[in-house]
């Protein structure tokens, strides 16, 4: 699952940097790429075991990316998933939704951004909401991830028409009109990657 996310970012990092260049400083793709490389390393060096532990190591690795806002925000996302994870080796559907909720909560500690501010939140909030609804509706892991990924994609899409109110790009609000927020696109790529990863794992 985690590696699926890394794969998606790797394929799209150029576009992410380009999106960051409309008002931002054009480095979001590079930074996400480095974050995902750190994630891959931490996955590779983890000796199987607990999901909770793996996620916490991953979070620390992502935070260590030295990537401006990206490290703390995405690191917090994984840290929250770890916080929300139980002690089990494999997660179930309800646990997954809770993990995402805990992730969102952890990110909220780092930023006051709300939906509509043209940030990662525009993708993350609906994705987590839809994951919860899907779990409540009795969907399986892949089903949950499918609905979450679709919600994240639509959320990222919706940022095209928004003007940023936070982050570096806020000072060049008009320049980013018509372009998606790079951070939101990253979130949607991560959920898409989770889904792909889960499908390959066989769910």
């Amino acid at each position, binding site marked *: 699952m985690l590696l699926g996310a890394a794969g998606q970012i790797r394929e799209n990092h150029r576009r992410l*940097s380009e999106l960051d*260049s409309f*008002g*931002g*400083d*054009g*480095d979001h*793709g*590079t*930074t996400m790429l*480095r974050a995902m490389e750190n994630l891959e390393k931490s996955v590779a060096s983890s000796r199987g075991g607990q999901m909770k532990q793996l996620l916490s190591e991953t979070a*620390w690795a*992502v*935070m*260590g*990316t*030295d*990537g*401006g*806002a*990206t*490290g*703390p*925000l995405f*690191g*917090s996302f994984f840290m929250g998933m770890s916080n929300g994870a139980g002690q089990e080796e494999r997660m179930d559907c309800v646990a997954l939704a809770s993990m995402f909720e805990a992730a969102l909560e952890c990110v909220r500690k*780092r*930023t006051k951004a709300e939906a509509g501010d043209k940030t990662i939140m525009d993708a993350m909030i609906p994705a987590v909401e839809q994951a919860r609804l899907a779990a409540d509706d009795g969907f399986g892991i892949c089903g949950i991830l499918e609905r979450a990924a679709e919600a994240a994609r639509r959320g990222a899409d919706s940022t095209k028409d928004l003007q940023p109110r*936070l*982050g*570096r*790009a*806020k*000072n*060049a609000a008009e*320049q980013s009109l018509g372009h998606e927020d790079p951070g939101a696109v990253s979130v949607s790529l991560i959920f898409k990657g989770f889904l792909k990863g889960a499908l390959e794992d066989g769910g």
Partner: protein
Amino acid sequence: MAMKKFLNDPDNLVDELLSGFALAHADKVKLTESNLVVRAKAKARDKVALVTLGGSGHEPALSGYVGEGMLDISVPGEIFAAPGPPKLIEALRMAERPAGVLLIVLNHDGDVMSANMAMEMAQQEGLNVKQILTHEDISTGPRDKPEQRRGLVGCLAVIKVAGAAAEQGASLDECLEIADRMERNMATLAVAVTSATHPCTGEAISEIPQADMIIGMGQHGESGSAQSKLKTADETAEIMLDMLVEDLSIKKGDDVLLMINGVGSTTLMEQYVVLNSCKKILDSRKINMVRCAAGEFLTVQEMGGFQMFMARMDDELIKLWDAACKCPCMAI
């Protein structure tokens, strides 16, 4: 235009630049294994330590100010990107001492998030750390909304006066008070005329029309608000001074420190010319430019333009500004 920089693998850029930096200033600083910049000769442990963090690509900031009379540790991040919380907490642990640690943070989302997370961890660990946030870019928010104001070259003044106080044996609360006084009495405004390229992506980080200048351009090429035709040094100085004086409510007879910070390819020659313009204008308004400086203190790659910094000074701040310091890129 294609990027014309002397670089090797962009993935190693920060490592290489830090290692070159440490070579050039081996008498004053050294690098730790995890690329923290520390003093070659540590400060006595009964004095407050100063730590800061910030993205790379802004040389000589901030690591150039590690040394006697200024910083104890600088935590450099990637190009234009703050270091993550892990590195920062490592630095705070290393700096930890009975006298306490002052963490100086420039107001940019990434820096603040890293600092906040590291501060939370530090508190959990019982470290004696206090934090000061610099936010003095008057183009991004009004004075009563400091959280909207970016941290620009003003961090240098805060580091200078707080560093001098620490060196003289001031307590953590006293250092914080000094830093805070400097911070509340300072304002910066930037103007840009040509763009910089991001050394890793090779892309221009902003677009500035041929004949224009942009007042309010940020430290990473984030655009500012007021765009106009390029003006003379006198005219530009007057516009910028007006805004700074108004923001700080500077009155006739006030004492100010004025600093022109070249951000990259604007020459020192021009900086001196602008400084001279400022002096004429301030004189005509009976505002005392008691101290001034010009130079590349915090750059944005090869961007053309400068940051104009102004601060209302009192006698204690002036004394601390004048105090001796011996850093790689600042020596008084």
